[in-house]
């Protein structure tokens, strides 16, 4: 390697390292603070490292309650999305449905147009008219509606890759479409449902705006809203507790990404996160 190439290699490595450090910096505090019983907002090595903060989280009724609410809302939504999206995706992939193309186009269009805080204005009014403001059911239903179009497309592509012969032989053998679906399609479709379910879970678990707008009572708030109200409140937040709590709350998301990445590869995350 000549000198010029060596210098440019060094410059390149330094740039790459600096970029990595710049990305890591905002999160470094999070590596230490949860294990520091006296954590403050400054970066300090915990001496000694301790799990006391995590014990404090589990002793805190409100913190545990909020995590349970997050679980309830996430599992409720996942269940609803996984079942209804599988059924609908099966119809989209296999039924002779007039206007199937139109339905797909409308789904794609609306799901990207009706989003964010603009969508929350009519959604709030609709939920209000249904008498569901400040209920966990409202959070589940609204999340499910918003996540369904993408879940349906994920599953439709999976179903399209299953040879038709599978169900057709069941139908020829006299099974009803429902039986063919439950006994033949659903078992083959497990990876697809897993991915759609994991994706939906992560969305609800991390979701902030929907519960923030639709819920009012402290005892129904999920962990996302709980964490925000803790650190945004005037006065010093309980930093050690909150640091440990945030890490606990992030763990399922990290674990699920890691699992899906390892098992199915990253291409599935292309359009998946937002």
């Amino acid at each position, binding site marked *: 390697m000549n000198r010029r190439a060596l210098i440019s290699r060094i410059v390149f490595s330094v740039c790459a390292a600096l970029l990595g450090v710049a990305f890591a910096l905002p999160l470094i505090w999070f590596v230490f603070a949860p294990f520091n019983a006296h954590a403050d907002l400054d970066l300090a090595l915990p001496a000694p490292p301790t799990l006391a903060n995590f014990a404090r989280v589990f002793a805190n009724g409100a913190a545990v309650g909020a995590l349970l609410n997050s679980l309830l809302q996430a599992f409720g939504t996942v269940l609803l999305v996984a079942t209804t999206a599988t059924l609908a995706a099966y119809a989209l992939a296999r039924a002779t449905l007039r206007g199937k193309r139109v339905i797909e186009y409308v789904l794609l269009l609306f799901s990207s147009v*009706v989003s964010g805080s603009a969508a929350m204005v009519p959604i709030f*009014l609709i939920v209000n008219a249904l008498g569901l403001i400040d209920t966990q059911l409202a959070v589940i239903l609204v999340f499910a509606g918003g996540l369904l179009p993408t879940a349906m497309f994920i599953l439709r592509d999976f179903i399209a890759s299953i040879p038709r012969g599978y169900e057709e032989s069941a139908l020829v053998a006299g099974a009803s479409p429902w039986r063919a679906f439950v006994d033949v399609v659903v078992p083959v479709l497990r990876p697809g449902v897993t991915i759609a379910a994991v994706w939906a879970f992560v969305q609800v678990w991390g979701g902030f705006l929907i519960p923030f707008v639709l819920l009012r009572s402290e005892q129904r708030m999920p962990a996302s809203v709980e964490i925000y109200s803790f650190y945004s409140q005037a006065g010093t937040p309980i930093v050690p507790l909150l640091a440990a709590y945030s890490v606990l709350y992030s763990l399922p998301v990290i674990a699920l990404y890691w699992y899906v990445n390892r098992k199915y590869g990253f291409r599935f995350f292309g359009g998946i996160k937002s």
Partner: protein
Amino acid sequence: MRNSGTFSSRIGVAFMTPAGVLVTLFVVFPFFWIIAVSFTNRSLLGASALHPQLVGLKNYLDLFDPATFWSQGGFGPSLWLTVQFVVFSALCGQVLLGLVLAWISRELSPRAKSLLQGIVMLAWILPDVVVGFAWFAYLDRDAGTLNQLLRGLHVPAADFLIEHPFLTICVFNAWRGAAFSMMLFDAALQSIPPSYLETADVVGASGWQKLRDIVLPLIRGHIVTDLILITMWTFNVFTPFLLTAGGPSFETDILPIYTYRIAFKSFEFGKGAAIGVIVMLINLAFSLVYLRLAQRGLRKKGKAA
């Protein structure tokens, strides 16, 4: 083959119904309902909550009223801030950063590559409130990591969320979302036959020349896709609210936060709906362009196959 299904349309409709009800109620219907509400003076409490009145185009005319359009906390400044936010944090930030990251990771050893990409991915997958809290701690005036670092470099510390709020949310959003562009471009770069770049190396092309003359033309489709998606997402992103709540004095009052403030802080649903309709129409324009391009891409692929 596509048209002849495995089973009849009656059963198909039955299978579609549960999802259809949910999507209709919480995705399709809200689109039309927000248009209807935008022509009323609907509020949360009082007479206009129970019996909202039709006010025609009043909400829209108010938004664009020249006398108040540019006033602090008004529609004009919010719109302008949003444009800048998209240009700086999405186009200059996420897309460019993503391209640089993907380009750099090509030349790294596999271990360094997965370390770099892992860090960038972490910024992207962590829940909103966790990155909100992380940045809140990171930027703290007295103790935050950033100010500790700056003091070490003898740069005066600053309360970034108060003194440079808009710059802060731009950097924050670029940091938060760069991973998506990085992954998209990473996949795109891998699809370029290595021989192209090797040939360029043989004739002694510089890194910049390779990027400009070989790589960028080949991944143009990916860049366009990325630009549209990132623009749409940034245009609707609510996460900066978790850092600044739109303040101080409306300096980070981008449209998603402005909409939220009018509808859910002031409870002026009519006016909030009017803003929402404008936002959705802009979304619609982007989506139509995106779908058009995506379909063209599919058709091309179909022909090639």
